[in-house]
C-alpha cells in the first residue's frame, strides 16, 4: 500500500463520497488511486474549472448538508487558487477539508516547480493546517482534520501532502490510526447551568420589548423549531443576520427580516427600540451592529447564546447572561424553564409597533416602477412564487446579494447560502454546484449578479458535464453595482471603473458552455424560464435586466450607525 492508497482508504472510512477539485502533478497519485473508488461508485470526483470554484463548491456542499465538504488541488498555483475559497469558509464557519498536493519533501523550500508554501500561506485564513511529514501520519491527521472542521465553531482545515509521500510505501506498523485526542484542541465548555438559565428567563419575562436575533450558529445548530417555539411563547419578534436568514422561515409572522448595514429598516428599528435582545448564534459583527454606541446608548440587556465563549468575551458590550453551548440545546433549556413558570405574556403594544414599522417602511421598498428593467424586489417575489419551499438559494456578492438579504424569503433551514464575512464575489455559482450535489433532490438556484457571475462562470461547464442542474438567475445591471452605488452616493457621483460594456451576451455564454440560456425581459418571461429550467433539469442561465443605477436600499453612510439609515434614493431629493 502507498500513501495515496492510505489517503483514499481513510477518506472512505470518513464517509467522503464527493471531492471537488482539479488534478495536477502533485495530487495525481491520489487521483490515480481514486480511479478504482470512482469505478466502484464509492466516490465521485467533480472536475471544477478553477480551484477557487472547488473550494466554494465544497463550502456550498457543507452548508447545504451540514457535513464537511472536501476539495483538492495540486501544489503551487492549484493550492494557491483555493485560498479565497478557504478564507470565505473560515469567515462563515463552514467545515471544508482541503487536501493539497505538495512538491516532494526533498524539494520543499527550494523554489521548485509549482511549489508554494501552502501552510505558510493559509495558516492565518483557516482553522488549521498540517503538512504531513510521514506517510504513517496520514490517517490520524485526516481524522483530526475532519474532527477539527466540525467541532465547536466549524471551519476549513488544510492537509498538505508532499507527493513523494503519496508514492511512498506504507509499513503497516508505522501507521498512526485513530481518533486519539488532539493536543491543543478541545471541545468548548458548556456554560448553561440552571442558575444562568433562570437568570436569562427572568430577564426575558420582565422584558417589555424583547427581540430575538438569530445568526449562522442557529442555522448550524438546526435550531429552527426551538427559536419559533420560544418566539411564540415570549411573543418576541425575530430579526436575523445575513447568514442567519434561513434559521427561521421568513414567512413566519414574528420574523421581521435581516438587520444590519443593508438590513430591513423595520428590523434595524426593532433592534434599536428593543429593551432585551436574545442573540442566538451571532457574533454581532460590524456588518450587523455597525456602531456599538447604538447598543451602549440604549442600555438594552443582552442574553447571548454562542458555542464559542471567547466570542462573547470579546464583545465590547455588557452581556447580562452568556449561555455557552449548542444553540438548540440551550434554547430547549430556556423553553423548558419558561414552560415550568407558565407565564402568559401580553405584548400586543410591542407587536403592534413592529407591524407599524413594517407598514411604514414598505412604502419605501415597493416603488419605482419606472419601466426600466425589472425591479429586484418584484423579480425575487416572482422567483419565490415559482420555486418549491425547500429550494436552496446561493448568491454572489454585491447589490443582488443585498436585495436577496432584504427581499428573499428563505423558508427552510440551510436554504440561503451566501458569502457573509468575506464577501467573496464569484461564490454563488460554484456554491450552487456544491449545494446541488449535496441535495440532489432539491431545486438549487444561484441568484447572482453579472459582476460576480463573470468571476467564476467557467464552472458552469462543470455543471453541464457533470449533469448538475443548477439555475443561475442573473441580475444584469452591467456594472459592479454596489461599488457604483457607494461612488454615486458617497464619493460625489464620481463613478469610475465599475461599468461593463453592453456587448456581453450571457445567453450565448450559457449556450456556449452547454447550458440553457433565457433572456427574461418581463416577470412572465422569468416565470416561464425558471419553470422550463426545472422541467428540462439542465443547468440554465436566466438573465434579467436591471437598471444600471438601481440602488440597494436601505443602506447606511460609510461608518454610519443604524440610526442613519438611508431609505430612499437621495439623488432624487426629499
Amino acid at each position, binding site marked *: 500500500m502507498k500513501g495515496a492508497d492510505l489517503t483514499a482508504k481513510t477518506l472512505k472510512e470518513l464517509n467522503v463520497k464527493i471531492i471537488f477539485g482539479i488534478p495536477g502533478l502533485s495530487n495525481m497519485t491520489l487521483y490515480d488511486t481514486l480511479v478504482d473508488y470512482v469505478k466502484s461508485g464509492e466516490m465521485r470526483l467533480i472536475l471544477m474549472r478553477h480551484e477557487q470554484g472547488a473550494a466554494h463548491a465544497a463550502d456550498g456542499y457543507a452548508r447545504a448538508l451540514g457535513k464537511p465538504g472536501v476539495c483538492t488541488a495540486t501544489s503551487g498555483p492549484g493550492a494557491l487558487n483555493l485560498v479565497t475559497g478557504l478564507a470565505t469558509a473560515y469567515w462563515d464557519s463552514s467545515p471544508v477539508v482541503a487536501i493539497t498536493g505538495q512538491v516532494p519533501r526533498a524539494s520543499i523550500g527550494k523554489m521548485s516547480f509549482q511549489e508554494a508554501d501552502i*501552510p*505558510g500561506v493559509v*495558516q*492565518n485564513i483557516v*482553522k*488549521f*493546517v*498540517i*503538512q504531513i*511529514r510521514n506517510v504513517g501520519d496520514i490517517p490520524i491527521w485526516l481524522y483530526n482534520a475532519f474532527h*477539527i472542521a466540525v467541532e*465547536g465553531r466549524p471551519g476549513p482545515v488544510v492537509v498538505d501532502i508532499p507527493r513523494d509521500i503519496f508514492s511512498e510505501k506504507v509499513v503497516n506498523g508505522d501507521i498512526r490510526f485513530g481518533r486519539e485526542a*488532539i*493536543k*491543543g*484542541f*478541545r*471541545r*468548548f*465548555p458548556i456554560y448553561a447551568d440552571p442558575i444562568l438559565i433562570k437568570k436569562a428567563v427572568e430577564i426575558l419575562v420582565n422584558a417589555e420589548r424583547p427581540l430575538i436575533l438569530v445568526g449562522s450558529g442557529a442555522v448550524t445548530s438546526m435550531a429552527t423549531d426551538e427559536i419559533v417555539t420560544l418566539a411564540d411563547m415570549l411573543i418576541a419578534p425575530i430579526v436575523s443576520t445575513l447568514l442567519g436568514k434561513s434559521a427561521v422561515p421568513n414567512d413566519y409572522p414574528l420574523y421581521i427580516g435581516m438587520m444590519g448595514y443593508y438590513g430591513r429598516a423595520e428590523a434595524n428599528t426593532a433592534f434599536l427600540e428593543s429593551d432585551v435582545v436574545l442573540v442566538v448564534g451571532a457574533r454581532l459583527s460590524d456588518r450587523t451592529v455597525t456602531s456599538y454606541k447604538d447598543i451602549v446608548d440604549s442600555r438594552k440587556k443582552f442574553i447571548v447564546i454562542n458555542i*464559542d*465563549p*471567547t466570542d462573547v*468575551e*470579546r464583545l465590547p458590550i455588557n452581556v447580562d447572561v452568556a449561555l*455557552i453551548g449548542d444553540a438548540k440545546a440551550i434554547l430547549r433549556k430556556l423553553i423548558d424553564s419558561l414552560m415550568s413558570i407558565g407565564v402568559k405574556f401580553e405584548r400586543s403594544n410591542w407587536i403592534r409597533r413592529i407591524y407599524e414599522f413594517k407598514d411604514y417602511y414598505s412604502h419605501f421598498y415597493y416603488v419605482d416602477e419606472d419601466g426600466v428593467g425589472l425591479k429586484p424586489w418584484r423579480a425575487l417575489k416572482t422567483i419565490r412564487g415559482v420555486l418549491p419551499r425547500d429550494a436552496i438559494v446561493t448568491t454572489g456578492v454585491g447589490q443582488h446579494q443585498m436585495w436577496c438579504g432584504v427581499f428573499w424569503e428563505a423558508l427552510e433551514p440551510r436554504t440561503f447560502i451566501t458569502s457573509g464575512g468575506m464577501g467573496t464575489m464569484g461564490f454563488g455559482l460554484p456554491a450552487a454546484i456544491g449545494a446541488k450535489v449535496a441535495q440532489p433532490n432539491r431545486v438549487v438556484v444561484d441568484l447572482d449578479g453579472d459582476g460576480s457571475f463573470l468571476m467564476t462562470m467557467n464552472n458552469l461547464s462543470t455543471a453541464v458535464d457533470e449533469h448538475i442542474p443548477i439555475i443561475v438567475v442573473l441580475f444584469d445591471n452591467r456594472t459592479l453595482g454596489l461599488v457604483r452605488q457607494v461612488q454615486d452616493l458617497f464619493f460625489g457621483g464620481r463613478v469610475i471603473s465599475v461599468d461593463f460594456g453592453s456587448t456581453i451576451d450571457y445567453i450565448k455564454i450559457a449556450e456556449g458552455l452547454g447550458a440553457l440560456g433565457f433572456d427574461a425581459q418581463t416577470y412572465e418571461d422569468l416565470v416561464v424560464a425558471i419553470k422550463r429550467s426545472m422541467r428540462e433539469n439542465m443547468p440554465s442561465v436566466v438573465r434579467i435586466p436591471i437598471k444600471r443605477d438601481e440602488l440597494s436600499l436601505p443602506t447606511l453612510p460609510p461608518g454610519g450607525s443604524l440610526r442613519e439609515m438611508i431609505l430612499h434614493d437621495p439623488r432624487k431629493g426629499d
Partner: protein
Amino acid sequence: MTQEKVIRLTVLYTDAGCIERVVAVFRKLLIDVNWIWGRRIDSHYEMYVSVKDHQNLKLALLNLSKTVGVESVELLLDAKVKRYVYTNGKFEKVAEESPANESINIGFRQFVVYIPVYTRIAGYRWGEKYGENI
C-alpha cells in the same frame, strides 16, 4: 518597560509553523513583540512572549486560546522582567536603567535573557478561564 506584558504559552509542536501561528496572532492585531523565548520539549513548545500593552491584547489572548495547537495561554500578572547578561561565562543582572544590553551583540560573547517574575496568572484554554480575569 512599564507597559510590558508577558505571556506564557504551551503549544503543540507539529513543525516550526507553531511559532509563526502564535506570533501572527499579535501581528494581525497590530501588537508589537519585544522579545520571545522558547524551547521545544518533545511534542510541545514552551514560549514566553513579551508584548507592549495594547488595546487589542485581550482579543489576542482570546484568539490564541482557541488556536488549534495552543494548549494554554497565560498572561503573567504583575510581571517584572529582570534582565541578565551572560558574559564571559557568568550571568550578571542588569539594572533596569542600564543601556548595556540594548545593543545587538554581534561580535561579543554576550547573551541577554529576560526573566519574568510574577505573582499571579490569568489563563485561558479553549474558553475555560483559570487564575484571575484578564
